[in-house]
């Protein structure tokens, strides 16, 4: 058990090296001097000199990469071209907002997705078809468009919720629903397949033969077992919220990392863009790690056949 945890966590090291190598290549490929891409054009000469030295701008490419990783390890992601603020500080400041949005979206999509997936699997074919229409639409509508439609209906026409801004629940609701839609579809699909597979499983037939009530069979035996793959997809979707956040936060003026990235893109503020990509990927990788570990804990079969037994 713990050996698996160690092994899985150790895999992070080559992965992070690879990821930073790709972001480093992107920084090198940016137009202009890579030192400026990191330091920001308005930085004081001392900071530029410091970064130039730490990254080893005049040395070989491997030395530069090592310098780049060193800077990242120190939490140095450069300065914004325009505000001259430390990108890492900005990211730390805005992260809680994005996390709040993502978690709210998950609170909407996970229970609803499981419910709909369950209904699609055990319900009549017409129910199944209706739900599949919802799921296909959910993954096919661009979030920036569904978000705008929600804003048009609920804020501009019905005046129920504020159209944009950062704040309490009333500000949170529309962007969270927007972000929840594609994830909802993924969760419904996986739940549906998982439940449908269980319906014909041997142990369900056994429970029926034992005379368990239908409620008990569905609520305990099927639901519990079907949730194992669903937990994985919930985790993965939580990570992929970072993709949707750039567009959703922009639409709703939500002051998180996504909008910060968008502002960086608009102004071609390279340190900001790269900082957002690195932060987003780091969160994505950590969530994937947690998903793998949780999967290992909740599925007894994994424990039994785990590498260390």
């Amino acid at each position, binding site marked *: 058990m713990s050996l698996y945890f160690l092994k899985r966590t150790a895999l992070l090291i*080559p*992965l992070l090296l*690879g*990821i930073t190598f*790709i*972001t480093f290549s*992107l920084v090198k*490929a*940016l*137009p202009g001097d890579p030192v400026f891409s990191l330091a920001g054009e308005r930085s004081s000469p001392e900071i530029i000199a410091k970064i130039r030295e730490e990254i080893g701008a005049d040395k070989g490419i491997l030395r530069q990469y090592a310098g780049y990783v060193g800077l990242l390890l120190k939490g140095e992601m450069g300065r914004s071209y325009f505000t001259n603020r430390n990108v890492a500080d900005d990211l730390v400041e805005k992260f809680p907002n994005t996390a709040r949005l993502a978690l709210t979206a998950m609170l909407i999509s996970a229970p609803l997705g499981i419910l709909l997936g369950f209904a699609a699997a055990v319900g009549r074919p017409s129910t199944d078809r209706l739900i599949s229409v919802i799921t*296909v*639409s959910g*993954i*096919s*509508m*661009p*979030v*920036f*468009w*569904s978000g*705008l*439609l929600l*804003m*048009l209906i609920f804020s*501009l026409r019905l005046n129920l919720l504020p159209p944009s801004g950062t704040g309490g629940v009333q500000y949170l609701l529309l962007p969270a629903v927007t972000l929840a839609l594609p994830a909802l579809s993924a969760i419904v699909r996986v739940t549906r397949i998982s439940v449908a597979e269980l319906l014909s499983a041997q142990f369900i037939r056994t429970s029926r033969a034992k005379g368990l009530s239908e409620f008990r069979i569905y609520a305990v035996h099927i639901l519990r077992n079907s949730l194992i793959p669903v937990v994985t997809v919930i985790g993965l979707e939580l*990570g*992929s919220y*970072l*993709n*949707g956040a*750039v*567009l959703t936060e922009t*639409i709703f003026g939500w002051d998180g990392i996504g909008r910060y*990235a*968008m502002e960086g*893109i*608009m102004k*071609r503020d*390279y340190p900001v*863009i*790269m900082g*957002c*990509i690195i932060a*987003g*990927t780091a969160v*994505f*990788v950590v969530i*994937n790690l947690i998903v793998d570990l949780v999967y290992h804990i909740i599925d007894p079969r994994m424990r039994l056949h785990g590498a260390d037994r």
Partner: protein
Amino acid sequence: MALTGRLSAAVLFMVIIASLFSPLLAPYDPDAIDLDSIKEPPSSRHIMGTDNKGRDIFSRILHGGRISVFVSLTAAFVCMTIGLGVGLVSGYIGGKTDIFLMAVVDLILSFPSFLLAIGISVILSPGVYTVIIAISAVGWASFARVIRGNVFMLRESLFVEAARALGCSRARILLMHILPQCIPLTLVMAGLKTGGFILTEAGLSFLGLGSQPPSATWGSMISSSRIFISSAPWTVLFPGIMISVTAICFNLLGDSLRDKLDSSGTSLSH
């Protein structure tokens, strides 16, 4: 093929034809500014209305579809080609080559895909080809992963063994025997992924990283009209419907192709 699959294919065919022949079909010049008819609601003169510069939205959608569909299909083709190449080599040669190639695939898949596409787009000058490169650079990895799994399985099959026994060269086995067997799976993957590519293209255009003004894409039309959503909702509504319908059709087509493939015995589980 299921009815939904046929229907989707028919709609997609119409979208592609309409985009291809947009110069002939469009009633107006898509970029012609007409300040006498700004933000007109849909009418018999302008069936989808006009935008804030008086440009005909229907004409812009037809022309924009050209870029949006062309970019997504080209990206799908590039992903298929790279994915097939890497998948074949990785799956058939195996060993260290396989470990290295799959490590690269894993690396790309460990990025949030849209963020990586943004990163690649910003280093190149914005435009149609940049979007194709950004989508393909991220998208080929999942193709390679699935095709490699399939090649792995085919490698051990009897007909490959027979070919080997007949003295076929490695290249011949790979290209003449294994490659054709991978084509259906690759096409199904393309069907499943192109819907997502449509959305990625729209998202990048929305962020201003795609084709540059004045030429329209569906994503950039929404981006430039979103401040008028209250006074002229049709400017945002119709491009979004086009993106959604096209993506829905690709997804449904992909699903029904996958069902067909699954029933023929090849599994797409990855």
